């Protein structure tokens, strides 16, 4: 395996290039499919194999920016990126992240930061995963009941997002790709809230913004995925520069990870074509629960178990996504050969 060892000059160590490609590929698939950055997979995965923590975050941000360009380009061609909505969210997110940082410093002065933030992280992940899972189950049951009764699909009662869209606070903006019209303040405030949460928890926030786009703004799932990746792209690009200028990026490692991530990102992004929005939400809930378990293990000082859990789960989920892609391609080509006009996921 020595032939696959490369020298990383900034980190000052040798590292297996196949591991870098694998980590990049895994995060690329998950990122392109769910619209997340994947730092919570990359950082422990790098650390478990001896990569210095001081460089793990910066290196991850650097490769995340490049990987997100790939996914955003593809999602853009699919019509899944709402640039106007993404920019509106970023305005709120940047202010929210600064507010969150100030909140963390205040909690630190009170000596409460460590305790509260660690518990808040687990609780928050559990809440997001539970709500997304509950939403999937209740939607599926409702649709099955309607099908059994022979009734047409029912959009159901007004969702929270639809109620929020009805708030008439000018300026009212039409977000074309999402197909919604709402006050500009809605995405700004949602971005602000997610920014605070991300900053307090010390995460990038992709896994918070994606469900927020769906449940608070009312984006279709695919547009939420694409738009979130657009935001991750901008965050990643800035993170790459600021950590690079602080000397915290191992560029050679980032390049190899990006090599694997570009392949994974294409596969994960194209896979959304063959999956219904609610199934993406189901897989997202499963991923969040696994991340929650990993964070819980870390807080019990079982660091190795925590890192192994998240890495194995990431590889498993990316294999499921690639499986869905292969199945979808086979079905599409078979349908085209038989002259059928529709492909069901």
């Amino acid at each position, binding site marked *: 395996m020595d032939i696959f060892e490369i020298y990383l000059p900034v980190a000052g160590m040798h590292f297996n290039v196949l591991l870098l490609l694998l980590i990049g590929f895994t995060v690329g698939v998950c990122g392109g499919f769910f619209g997340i950055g994947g730092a919570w997979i990359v950082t422990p995965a790098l650390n478990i194999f001896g990569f210095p923590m001081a460089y793990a975050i910066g290196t991850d941000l650097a490769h995340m920016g490049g990987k997100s360009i790939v996914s955003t380009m593809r999602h853009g061609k699919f019509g899944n990126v709402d640039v106007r909505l993404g*920019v509106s969210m970023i305005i709120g997110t940047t202010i929210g992240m600064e507010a969150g940082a*100030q909140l963390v410093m205040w909690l630190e002065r009170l000596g409460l930061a460590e305790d509260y933030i660690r518990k808040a992280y687990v609780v928050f992940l559990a809440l997001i995963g539970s709500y997304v899972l509950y939403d999937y189950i209740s939607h599926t049951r409702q649709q099955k009941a309607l099908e059994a009764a022979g009734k047409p699909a029912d959009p159901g009662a007004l969702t929270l997002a639809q109620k929020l869209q009805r708030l008439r606070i000018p300026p009212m903006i039409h977000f074309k790709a999402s197909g919604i019209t709402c006050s500009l303040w809605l995405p700004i405030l949602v971005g602000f809230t997610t920014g605070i949460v991300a*900053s307090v928890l010390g995460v990038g926030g992709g896994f918070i913004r994606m469900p927020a786009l769906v449940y608070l703004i009312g984006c279709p799932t695919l547009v939420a995925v694409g738009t979130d990746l657009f935001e991750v792209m901008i965050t990643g690009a800035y993170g790459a520069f600021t950590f690079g*200028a602080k*000397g915290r990026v191992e560029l050679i490692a980032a390049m190899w990870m990006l090599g694997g991530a570009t392949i994974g990102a294409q596969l994960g992004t194209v896979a959304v074509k063959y999956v219904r929005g609610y199934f993406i939400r189901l897989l997202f809930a499963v991923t969040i629960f696994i991340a929650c378990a990993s964070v819980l293990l870390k807080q019990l000082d079982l660091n190795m178990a925590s890192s192994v859990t998240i890495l194995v789960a990431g590889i498993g989920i990316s294999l499921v996504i690639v499986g869905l892609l292969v199945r979808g391609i086979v079905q599409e080509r078979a349908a085209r050969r038989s002259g059928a006009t529709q492909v069901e996921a």
Partner: protein
Amino acid sequence: MRQHSKKVSWTAGRLASGWFWGPLLTAWAVAGEAIAAGGGKPVTKLVNVVDTRNMSPGFVRWVADVYNTNLWLYGLLVVGIMAGMGIFFGSVFDRLIAMLGINLGKLDHHE
């Protein structure tokens, strides 16, 4: 009065138009990222110098030299290489995926 109301209508039209909000919001977003990243706890200083004494000439040696010489340039190099690789490989794999015969046009946003 009529000229004033025309001016108001033109201004209102521009304010409602994406061409006004797009660049403004983008500039705000980029500036905002800089402000947000500058806030919070400062990163603890960790001085690192790459040992290039036994490194042979090549791309890795050049990256190490840039790192040792100018970190701002290194930061720009990181962004440039990551963006360039992302765009290049994104385009290449886009074409490779298309060769599988998949329809890669706009999707229906089916839930």
